[in-house]
């Protein structure tokens, strides 16, 4: 009865009021979702920052550096061309280089235009202007040089190249080199910042994962605790219900026993005394007198009332159970049922019988009684089989009919069925309601009560 590990005291004390875990779990879910949203927002912000750094700084810097390298290459080509012009080892006038200069100029102009488009954001207007004006001045000087060359002033043109063009080209080259260095430094700084962002994000990821794990841990612990409480409550309620059922059944049995005894002892004695007195009174009346006949008639009625009282007493609580045991009671009871209900009952006993405690016997008896009551009331069967099996470790009682049977769902079970279950549980046994074996037509009902032997022998209920 108390083998589920629930303390007996708890069965009597009402369970502690406990709030549902749902609000807390809901709160936890909201907090978790909020944390995920906040974290996603954080990561998105970091990523957009990273992208911005990549696009606006690193990529832009690289594109700009490529254009600066192109400009530097053009400036170097100009430097080489000027060196060739000054070397004077070609048989051509200086104007021969004008096409070469023009090619470089076209490429340089394009490179400068593209460079301005991708110039880093930290480029100062002064730097922009310097580059633009310096290139402009260089080409002005170059144009003047070629004008001089065209005018057959080769020597003057060479001097121009030497003192003006070369200096401007070198200054430009230096400026471009500075910009390249600046780009490299910016790129290094950006790489550093990118590294920091990665570190920060990595830390946050670890933090978030740790927090998530902790949240999962606490939620799990909380759920486990709540489940334990729920199960404890359920166990307590179940124990209470069983206790209540046991008490109800015990009270019922006690009441029935009391009424049965009262009927048997008090009314039985009274009716017996009345019968004896009436018999004596009848004997005193003259034979064949009308009084004697009437007294005899009253005496017979009294005897009939006495029989009915005894029968009712036996039905309410068969005293035989306590006096002669379960087997004898069933031996007595089944013919009574046959007689009262008008059905044929085949009774089988098997196995080596063992004593059944009186408290258990009343439960077994009541189960058989209820099963036969149901049978006679609902099955429409005219024949029943009762089997009492003494097995080495258990007692099994079967009541079978081949009537209509029943498929009532558990929720609609009558009080009789519930009582059968309760009684079975009180004995630590089980009661099953099944269909008979197919060989028996598959129709009807088989009620099988199985009770462990040790419970029957020492039932304390």
């Amino acid at each position: 009865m108390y083998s589920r590990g629930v303390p007996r005291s708890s069965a009597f004390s009402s369970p502690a009021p406990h709030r549902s875990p749902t609000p807390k779990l809901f709160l936890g879910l909201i907090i978790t979702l909020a944390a995920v949203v906040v974290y996603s927002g954080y990561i998105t912000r970091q990523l957009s920052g990273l992208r911005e750094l990549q696009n606006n700084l690193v990529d832009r810097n690289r594109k700009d550096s490529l254009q600066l390298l192109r400009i530097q290459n053009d400036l170097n080509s100009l430097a080489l061309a000027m060196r060739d012009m000054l070397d004077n080892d070609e048989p051509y006038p200086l104007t021969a280089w004008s096409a070469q200069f023009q090619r470089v100029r076209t490429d340089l102009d394009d490179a400068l235009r593209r460079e301005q488009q991708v110039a880093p954001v930290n480029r100062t207007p002064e730097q922009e202007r310097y580059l633009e004006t310096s290139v402009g001045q260089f080409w002005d000087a170059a144009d003047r040089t070629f004008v001089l060359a065209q005018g057959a002033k080769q020597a003057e043109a060479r001097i121009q190249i030497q003192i003006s063009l070369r200096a401007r080209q070198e200054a430009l080259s230096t400026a471009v080199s500075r910009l390249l260095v600046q780009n490299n430094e910016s790129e290094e700084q950006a790489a550093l910042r990118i590294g920091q962002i990665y570190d920060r994000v990595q830390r946050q990821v670890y933090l978030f994962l740790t927090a998530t794990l902790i949240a999962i841990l606490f939620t799990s612990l909380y759920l486990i605790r709540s489940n334990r409480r729920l199960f404890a409550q359920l166990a307590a309620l179940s124990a209470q219900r069983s206790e209540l059922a046991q008490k109800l059944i015990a009270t019922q049995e006690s009441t029935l026993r009391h009424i049965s005894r009262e009927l048997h002892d008090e009314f039985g004695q009274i009716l017996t005394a009345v019968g004896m007195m009436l018999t004596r009174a009848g004997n005193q009346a003259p034979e064949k007198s009308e009084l004697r006949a009437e007294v005899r008639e009253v005496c017979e009625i009294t005897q009939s009332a006495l029989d009915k009282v005894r029968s009712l007493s036996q039905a309410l609580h068969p005293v035989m159970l306590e006096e002669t045991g379960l087997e004898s009671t069933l031996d007595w009871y089944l013919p009574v049922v046959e007689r009262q209900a008008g059905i044929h009952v085949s009774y089988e006993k098997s196995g080596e019988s063992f004593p059944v405690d009186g408290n258990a016997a009343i439960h077994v008896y009541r189960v058989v009684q209820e099963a036969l009551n149901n049978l006679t009331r609902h099955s429409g069967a005219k024949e029943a089989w009762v089997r009492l099996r003494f097995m080495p470790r258990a007692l099994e009682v079967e009541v079978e009919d081949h009537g209509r049977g029943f498929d009532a769902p558990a929720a609609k079970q009558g009080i009789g069925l519930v009582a059968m279950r309760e009684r079975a549980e009180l004995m630590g046994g089980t009661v099953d309601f099944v269909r008979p074996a197919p060989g028996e037509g598959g129709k009807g009902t088989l009620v099988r009560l199985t009770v462990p032997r040790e419970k029957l022998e020492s039932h304390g209920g």
Partner: protein
Amino acid sequence: MAGLASTSGLLSDAFATTPAPSADSRRSNPGFRLVDVTVPSGIHFRHNSGAYGGKLLPETLGAGCAFFDYDGDGWQDILLVNGVDWPGHKRDHRPEPSTLKLYRNNRNGTFSDVTRGAGLDLEMYGMGVAVGDYDNDGWADILITCVGQNRLFRNTGKGTFVDVTKSSGLSGRQAMSTSALWFDFDRDGLLDLFVCNYVKWSPEHDVFCSLDGKHKSYCTPEAYRGETCWLFRNRGNGTFEDVTATSGIFDSSSKSLGVAMLDYDHDGWPDLLVTNDTQPNKLYRNQRNGAFKDVAVEAGIAFSAEGRARAGMGVDVADFDNSGNPGIAITNFDNEMTGLYRLSDGGNYVDVAMPSGVGLASKDKLGFGCVFLDADLDGALDLAVVNGHIDDTVRNVSGVGYAQPPQLFLNSGNGTFVDVAAEIGGGFSQPKVGRGIAYGDFDRDGDLDLLITSNNGPAYLYRNDQTAGNRSIRIRLVGTKSNRDAIGAAVKIYSAGSSQSRLVKGGSSYLSQSELPVTFGLGKRDKVDRLVVVWPSGRTEEYKNLAGGRAYECVEGKGITAQAGF
């Protein structure tokens, strides 16, 4: 990938309508075989680079060759350019002086060495050759580019040549000249001369370069200053005017090795494509006023697709996809791949080397001479390339071979090429330190034979024997108002719904020149529906229903004459 796919699609659309054979079937049955006839034909030539161990730059670059008809008998003769021992480093193992070699075609598959008789048994550090009838006398003249002074030889028409370098005004110019070509840039009917120069080099200023850090090796051109190409205008009186500076050709940064003529913008005025080593290639667009403008960058030919100047070596230009537009092949250094360019609808060049299969196949090759020719006469131009590294110690450093196999990329007709060099026999694919390559039908059987030179090694003559029974038609043009060689004439044939075009041109390849007659492969077809010739003078002539399997001579303004056979 989508871009590549669409490019292939365009190519396939432009190609012949017959289904393209698979690569495997092309390999198993190329449709022709090459036979090495060098020795049996009487070509006994060995190039002398002068290499004595000093690893002087020019040693590794020469030399070229030419197919041309010097005696006007209609049979292609051969000229091979030679170097010499360096002063102070004469090697005495040679049985005879290393001179130019002129081989006359004996019309029976053999050649005779007529160098001495022709007056060409001259020692010079020769590099390349350009053949053209610059004086319009009907006899092919020769320019030999040299390390030092280039030499111009006028053909007397009597089997001899006269050195007219000085009288022509070409003397007094010392440089390291490479490829050259004759073309009529001002369309005055006189062939002008374009000469490529490599770098400013002299033995005294040779730079020490090393691949392994210990031993001297041949330098790449970064070690030297560039040198402008030259353009000489033919005055028509046997002399030339240097118009390098006034024509806009002058560029002291150029390090030029190859030159090809083309009409890139279809305006009838010859343009020039110059390949530069480690410098941007130049596409000189003819401005029609005696000047040129470099449009290589805009045209997409200056740099590789990655925007890098490659080591441009040899070059050839031809309508290899039968689109009517000049396609371009440029050989480059190993790991740079050969560039194969196709003119896009947008008017600029797109490198289709990778999708065509030429790119990957040439990745580990250092290419020099290259020519488009219809080797199998199927109507689609194929590409022959000779390869060879510049330094014989390269294998110790990079694992790339010094001698490398030549390649013959058969045009599949669907935008792809398959290298069948190993399948066509004749030992063609045997590794060589290849430099020059030229084609010409020396045996007049209607297909194109190949002449190859190797650096400091032998020359090779490969006879082409058709095995698939494809036919051809050959056209020899003679200009009257135009220059007599008709260089610059555009020839287009229409046959059975497809068309092919050729440009009569000198130059191309590397240091070499192929024959001037044009050859069209007809496949199994036996006639040409229409032949259209646009002469350099601007005159257009059209001829119909020409039978295949023979050669024709077309004289400007005088009609066309069928020859008996080729």
